[in-house]
């Protein structure tokens, strides 16, 4: 009995653990782990979702995904959106955060305004911008008139559709990254900045050599969210373009939705899910490796 206790914990506590953890574990297994395992399993079968799972096709589904005409577009768009988020959104968020982390009532008003779109539902944001970009009734044609040019119908243009989506993403998520930086900046001890200032260090140098290095963990988080966010982008795409024109604006998840789920091609969708999963986990692992490698150096 004593040995059992030492190894597993005392029985009364174990009963408490069972009661406390079981609901979470059951939900997690049924709705997270089991589907994930199934995605893997289904990806090797050809199946329309009904009847028994019997037509084993090996890696054909993976080949179908990779060979699909829209897949390279979806992958390309996801990468472009991730890079654009990193290069446009994050520096902008950091630049604004450096002004708005300071404490004053009028500063907090701007913080709230900038954070507003983040709290808005993606579908609402998508529809608002569908209106803004509308070539007949939206805001864009008026801007075009003012500039004496004809604006293209952005969302119907194979080239302009991606920059247009990137702009919506900046609008929607820039405030989120700003808030992460603001929280980081506010946790820098005042004495550090004061000490640098008393030593006569210029504002720019304080920003570059004190504030931004001390923001490292905030930047790590925000880069991670920007990349993972691009990998799972879907809710904005559907109301804005539905992946069009001619598949030009699909992302990985919208590709999965239109070509796997809507057509009930379970095997195909399963293969796409596994690819998405591997990408997400891969990004996380590589990212952590890079960070630890840098921390060791």
């Amino acid at each position, binding site marked *: 009995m004593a040995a059992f206790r030492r190894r*597993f*914990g005392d029985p009364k506590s*174990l009963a*408490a*653990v069972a*009661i*406390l953890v079981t*609901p979470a*574990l059951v*939900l*997690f297994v*049924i*709705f*997270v782990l089991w*589907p*994930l395992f199934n*995605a893997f399993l*289904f990806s090797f079968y050809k199946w329309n979702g009904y009847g028994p799972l019997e037509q084993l096709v090996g890696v054909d589904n993976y080949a179908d995904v990779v060979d699909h005409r829209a897949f390279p577009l979806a992958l390309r768009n996801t990468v472009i959106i991730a890079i654009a988020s990193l290069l446009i959104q994050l520096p*902008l968020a950091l*630049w*604004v955060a*450096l002004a708005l982390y*300071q*404490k*004053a*009532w009028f500063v907090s008003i*701007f913080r709230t*305004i*900038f954070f*507003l779109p983040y*709290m*808005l539902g*993606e*579908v*609402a944001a998508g529809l*608002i911008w569908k*209106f*803004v970009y509308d070539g*007949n*009734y*939206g*805001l864009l044609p008026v801007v075009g008139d003012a500039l004496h040019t004809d604006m293209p119908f952005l969302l119907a243009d194979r080239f302009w559709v991606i920059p247009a989506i990137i702009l919506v993403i900046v609008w929607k998520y*820039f405030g*989120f990254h700003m808030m*992460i930086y603001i*929280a980081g900046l506010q946790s820098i001890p005042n004495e550090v900045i004061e000490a640098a200032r008393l030593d006569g260090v210029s*504002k720019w140098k304080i920003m570059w050599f004190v504030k931004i290095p001390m923001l490292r*963990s905030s930047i790590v988080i925000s880069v991670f969210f920007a990349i993972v966010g691009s990998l799972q982008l*879907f809710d904005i795409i*559907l109301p804005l373009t539905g992946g069009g024109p001619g598949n030009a604006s699909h992302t990985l998840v919208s590709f*999965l939705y239109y070509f*796997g789920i809507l057509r009930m091609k379970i095997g195909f*969708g*399963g293969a796409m*899910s*596994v690819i*998405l*999963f591997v990408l*997400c*986990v891969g990004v996380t692992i590589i990212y952590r490796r890079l960070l630890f490698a840098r921390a060791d150096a």
Partner: protein
Amino acid sequence: MTQKRKLSVVGTRPEISLLQWTTIGLITLFILIPFYSTALGGFKTTGELRVNPFGLPASWDGANFALILGGDTFFLFMWNSLVIALFTVILSVVVSAMAAFALSHIRFFGRTYLTSLFMLGLLFPFATAILPLFITIRDMGLLDNPTAVILPQVAFNLAFSMLLFRSFFQELPIELIEAARMDRCGYLRIFWHIVLPLSLPILTTVGVFAFVTSWNNFLLPLIMLNNDTSFPWPLGIMQFQGQYNTDWPKVLAFLTLTILPALVFFLLAQRYIISGLTGGAVKG
């Protein structure tokens, strides 16, 4: 009050350069103009929208709003969203608080493995599991039922909620729990009578977070709900937009009406959303 406010402004006058003010000004316009023209657009006619999407409407004609508020679908959509969100909040908070407490304060075999298993949920979005999830839900006979959205939402919230709860519970004074153990108090009673009453801030944060993600969730209800009487607002508004297509004034009025209550709630709850984000971000 005014004196205090003045002092804080004078005491720590923010240093914001001209370039930063310019950026802030431009971004403010960039953020607010779409909101502004959406809100006004509902009062305009299609023809008016075409020539004057920026300016004030010629007359403040509330017919579009009256049409939507008078119809029965708008309130149904909002009600559905509310029901789904409230059940998601209650279940998420209860289930993840219980598990997080056990994992942070009770020593037992396999505790670290179990913790990492749950934290696996942080690694991937639920889009990766959505298709088999649909099959599971269908085989359970839950399609078109709010639980088809609620239960997976709770399950996918677990990792993040437990992360927030765990970092909070670990900060609780351990003496408190040890003293209760000395008095032969069981863990369930400790959880209920000691830990929960002390955890109000984190309960609110997790709850608000679960509410917002549920309220805005689109992909999951899109897959699970086909019957429009069970639609939450994101599906409802997509259906409405499909119906009225280029009748933008009606769509904009609908948008305004769905956004408005959400904005009020979010402004009140903003503090908790931010603390959840940054709390999770710093620990994660």
